[in-house]
């Protein structure tokens, strides 16, 4: 039997209270082990789409299923999320790297229960996996952009997700850190069954990683396998502008 998609969107539209149509009839399935590249210009609705999947934004119409259920909140425990603004933290925020990653275990510990030894061990494991163990006592605001992104990815991963949503995770990160970040992501996707939805403007890098591509600019322009996607053919339509994709040395 064909396993159920982890995410199903059927004709999902979002119109904000101010009348702006943010998404127009998006239809999408994300399956286990998929790495979906979500492409589109600024204001195309990429962040809104991720927020719709997380139940943070209510759709005006359409059906959303997460792990086969329309009760999104019930299944969020199995979703890891790295928001676009993850790096822009107050440098005074008194959270250590360890504590930040530990937050990812909150739902697993359960309401009215304290975090236990198992949760702390899990955090240590993930910190080691992401090369962050030496930084565990460092204040989160004292890290570089690349290190911060790894911490937020570690925080998402410590919740043992089946689905990972990453909203422009490498914006503002230096090229070397981007390279490391994509390397980690590729390894995670290949070595585990985690499905990833990755929104980014780094078209060259993420189309090398992706198994599938979704191009949107409020409405859907392309959704399919990476090998069927032609950046030079599809992106000018999405961006409404000539687009030249420059190859560079990402994983």
């Amino acid at each position, binding site marked *: 039997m064909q396993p159920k998609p982890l995410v199903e969107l059927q004709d999902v539209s979002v119109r904000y*209270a101010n009348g702006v149509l943010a998404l127009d009839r998006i239809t999408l399935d994300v399956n286990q082990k998929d790495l979906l590249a979500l492409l589109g210009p600024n204001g195309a609705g990429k962040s809104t789409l991720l927020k719709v999947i*997380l139940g*943070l934004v209510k759709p005006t119409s359409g059906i959303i299923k997460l792990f086969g259920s329309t009760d999104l*909140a*019930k299944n*969020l*425990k199995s*979703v890891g*999320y790295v*928001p676009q*603004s*993850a790096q822009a933290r107050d440098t*005074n*925020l*008194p*959270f*250590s790297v*360890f*504590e*930040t990653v530990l*937050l*990812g275990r*909150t*739902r697993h*510990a359960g*309401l*009215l229960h*304290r*975090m236990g030894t198992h949760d702390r061990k899990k955090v240590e494991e993930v910190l080691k996996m992401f090369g962050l163990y030496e930084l565990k*006592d*460092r*204040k989160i605001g004292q890290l570089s952009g690349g290190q911060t992104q790894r911490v937020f990815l570690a925080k998402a991963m410590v*919740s043992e997700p089946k689905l990972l949503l990453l909203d422009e995770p490498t914006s503002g990160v230096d090229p070397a850190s981007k390279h490391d970040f994509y390397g980690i992501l590729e390894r995670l996707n290949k070595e585990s069954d985690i499905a990833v939805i990755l929104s980014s403007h780094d078209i060259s890098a993420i189309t090398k990683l992706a198994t599938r591509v979704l191009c949107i600019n409020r409405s859907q322009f392309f959704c399919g396998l990476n090998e069927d996607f032609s950046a030079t053919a599809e992106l000018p339509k999405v961006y409404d502008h000539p687009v030249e994709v420059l190859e560079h040395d990402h994983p």
Partner: protein
Amino acid sequence: MITLESIWTLLQAGFIQRAFIISIIIAILCSVLSIFIVLKRVSLIGDGLAHTAFGGLALGYFIQGIFVAFFSQYVPWLIAGVIVVLGSIGITKAMRSTKISGDAAVAVFLQLGLAIGITLLSLTRVGIRIESLLFGSILLVSFEQILVALVIAVITISIILLFFKELVYVTFDETQARASGIRTWFYDYLISVLAGIVVIVSIPIVGVLLISALLVLPALTSIQFTKSFRQTVILSPIVGLATVVLGVLFSVVFDVAPGGMIVLTGLAIFAVVLLAKRIQESAKK
């Protein structure tokens, strides 16, 4: 200025000892809440709630003035308690609304509470010293007030401990907490309602005008040096305790109003910490 001997004699007086005891209870309570208030960037909520409490107390005294024979002295405080809890729910609802900014929401409730308070107090037949509400009257604290503060402190801290990890996550980042399935609205209201209750029990110490300082300064001072949430949870009550104990002591030594001296002491500690941080940062460069 009074002599050391007379200070020692004063410190042995029951009213001074009661002042220290309630100060310690309120300091711990406010310091713990201040961590969530400061890190969630809702520092003005203390002011909004204090002025709402002022309106509530004025309403209580106004009603007591009409039905004076049936009312005990605690009824105005109970009425103020109900009003401030309703006010804290209203402020949080307005702050969570996208139609009005957070500071504007607090300002509306602050002005409403103050306006109602001033109007009703001018009509009230019961003799109230408005200064004791505005600036506190810590030296007149009774044993019953200490008991009430203690019970509220135990309940408030127990609730915080019960929901600690969720409160920490919501304080760290509300969007990420929501994305993990935490009902963040509940914790926003919880912090606000607890702050409202703490404001009510704290008014006898520093009064309406200065209470927000106790809900901000301990955490604001602590986070200048702390590197983790755990350190902040430990340091904030220490700063709060030092602020009120030294403040009450200085007020006895210099024979000045305790409320003002407590806040001035807190501000002085904050200034010293900022200066030390600046020196430490310059030394590193």
